[in-house]
């Protein structure tokens, strides 16, 4: 994992001191709210419905057990004993007091974390495949490149005031677990037959009120040109992106309005100019240093547990279920990666208590080299578990209610904070997720349904990616009452698609039955081996519409 150098530490120390001073000046009345607001947003501090919210960046979703312990401490000391993992691999605290936030930032800095660029019209946290470095289908580990992008984009003076926020995602595998087609820039690592590394570069993807699948702007960008090409894309966007209307200010609108061909030409011209400036993409020494942090760990091939995996798998039905649903193959023989579901039946998607965080940090130390990943689906991953340790890990996770065997199933729902917390929301998301989860609480039924992605957003900003849910739900305000639009057929992976609205919306009391109707219909009409999205792609909306609006 990347570790800060003196330069990184110095930046954070300065930044924290600066924000402490800004908070004090605001409290003393030297700064107006209008003056202070952009300062607090630049440090990840939002005002929600009931309180401030602090969003902490987790670069490419990888963090250590010590950092998790610090999250637990912050949750307990300054918040209400929990944290919330978001769809951009970050963690949010929902109840910090403004007067405490400088102290929180100092605590975060002590473990090499911060909240810089988690808000505002700048380049946000670069997200990555949660199985980076261990996935069997991986061309190369995307995290060193994500770290290079992090260093390039952090406090980049030219891109501190873009037309709108800017999000980059990267994957090292063809099977897309990072939703790269729905980011401002999506990067897929490719390798030529000669063994040269480069990137397929997508641009102009996004969700929100105008959902668009990203377009390929460059089929193969050689590795050494990563930063100059990103710089060219950002420069072209910074110059030409609309600033007159915030709803048309994202790069996706620029690409849509000009067409990908024209935008590609503009970027190409910009890029050639940059290259002629003798732009240093990345000094080789620095690149080597960064890659060193991501070298594969030394795997200990001696298990720490004495329980036999095979016996346990045979005898323990719940363990077998957890293995079948939550375990992922690992590129090192004898090891596995495990999804820790933050979707307990009837629970709040993405939430985890401070006590759970503390215990999990200990388990990561024992079983997974002290490292944890967050996923854009609001779960966590232990990426380096010896297979013989899985029974013991499962028992330990089960003891703290973190062994729900539902990864990728009906109750593994993405939900934004919605109207329970968010000042932008029109309707609640979390109670709906809880009701669906309770309705489908039978694990055998969930497995019979198979892979199903349900995503619930409380407003059109689409923080829960509802457009790309197999079943997507959008909360709206209908004459002062919460109502829900239903969408079917979305997908965020390499076969990206945007869901279509079924028809008229549903009231709060109708929506859960409507979802069950859709699922029951799918079970009746699916072919052998199909998951929900396959059946939808084969038959379209009609069979579902017929029963929904009968």
């Amino acid at each position: 994992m990347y570790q800060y150098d003196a330069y990184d530490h110095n930046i954070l120390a300065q930044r924290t001191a600066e924000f402490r001073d800004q908070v004090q000046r605001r409290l003393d009345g030297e700064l107006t709210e209008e003056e202070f607001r952009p300062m607090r947003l630049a440090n990840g501090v939002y005002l929600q419905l009931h309180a401030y919210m602090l969003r902490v960046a987790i670069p490419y979703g990888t963090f250590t057990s010590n950092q998790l312990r610090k999250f637990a401490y912050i949750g307990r000391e300054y918040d209400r004993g929990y944290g919330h993992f978001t769809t951009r691999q970050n963690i949010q605290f929902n109840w910090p007091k403004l007067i405490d936030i400088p102290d929180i930032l100092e605590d975060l800095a002590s473990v090499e974390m911060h909240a810089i660029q988690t808000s505002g019209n700048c380049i946000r946290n670069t997200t990555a495949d949660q199985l980076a470095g261990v996935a069997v289908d991986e061309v190369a580990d995307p995290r060193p490149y994500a770290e290079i992008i992090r260093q390039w984009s952090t406090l980049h003076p030219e891109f501190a005031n873009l037309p709108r926020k800017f999000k980059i995602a990267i994957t090292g595998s063809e099977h897309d677990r990072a939703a790269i087609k729905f980011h401002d820039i999506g990067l897929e690592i490719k390798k030529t037959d000669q063994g040269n590394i480069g990137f397929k570069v997508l641009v102009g993807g996004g969700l929100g009120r105008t959902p668009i699948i990203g377009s390929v702007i460059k089929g193969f960008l050689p590795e050494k040109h990563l930063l100059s090409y990103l710089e060219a894309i950002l420069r072209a966007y910074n110059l030409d992106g609309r600033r007159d209307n915030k709803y048309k200010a994202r790069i996706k609108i620029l690409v849509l309005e000009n067409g990908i061909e024209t935008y590609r030409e503009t970027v190409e011209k910009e890029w050639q100019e940059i290259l002629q400036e003798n732009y240093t993409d990345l000094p080789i020494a620095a690149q080597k240093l960064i890659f060193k942090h991501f070298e594969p760990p030394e795997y200990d091939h001696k298990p720490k547990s004495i329980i036999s995996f095979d016996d346990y798998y045979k005898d323990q039905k719940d363990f077998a279920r957890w293995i079948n649903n939550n375990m992922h193959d690992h590129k090192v023989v004898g090891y596995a990666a495990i999804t820790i579901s933050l979707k307990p039946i009837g629970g709040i998607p993405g939430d985890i208590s401070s006590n759970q965080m503390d215990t999990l940090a200990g388990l990561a130390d024992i079983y997974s080299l002290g490292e944890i990943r967050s996923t854009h689906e609001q779960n966590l991953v232990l990426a380096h578990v010896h297979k013989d340790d899985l029974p013991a890990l499962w028992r330990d996770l089960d003891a703290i209610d973190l062994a729900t065997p539902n990864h990728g199933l009906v109750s593994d729902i993405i939900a934004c904070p919605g109207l329970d917390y968010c000042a932008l929301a029109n309707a609640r998301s979390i109670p709906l997720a809880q009701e669906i989860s309770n309705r489908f609480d039978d694990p055998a039924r969930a497995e019979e349904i198979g892979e199903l992605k349900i995503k619930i957003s409380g407003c059109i900003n689409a923080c829960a990616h509802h457009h790309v849910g197999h079943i997507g739900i959008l909360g709206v305000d209908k004459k002062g009452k919460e109502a829900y639009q239903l969408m079917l057929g979305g997908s965020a992976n390499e076969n990206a698609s945007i869901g279509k609205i079924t028809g008229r919306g549903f009231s709060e009391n109708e929506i859960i039955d409507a979802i069950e109707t859709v699922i029951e219909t799918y079970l009746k009409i699916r072919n052998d081996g199909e998951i929900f999205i396959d059946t939808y792609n084969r038959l379209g909306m009609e069979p579902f519409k017929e029963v929904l609006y009968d």
Partner: protein
Amino acid sequence: MNKSNIKPLAQQIMTANRLKDGTVVYFTGSRWSTEIHEALVSDDNEGLEKEALKNIENEDLISVELIKVDANKSQLAPLTMREKIRSTGPTIRC
């Protein structure tokens, strides 16, 4: 008899968040309280706003706004779900 086209003025209260911790507060007529049932209800929006703004300086408040309420019920009830949740906290946690 023809129905009047003039709608009765909506009853409103003033709300805000405290600067130092974000806590939701309501204007009582002389101070800011965390209890919505203590809020001063008025159909004189301008007058209410003026009175409330006079009392802001010492309170360090942000996001100050008028919200519509139904004051005819036994308990003061905001008309929108957003404000109902703001007054009681998240419906999923205490």
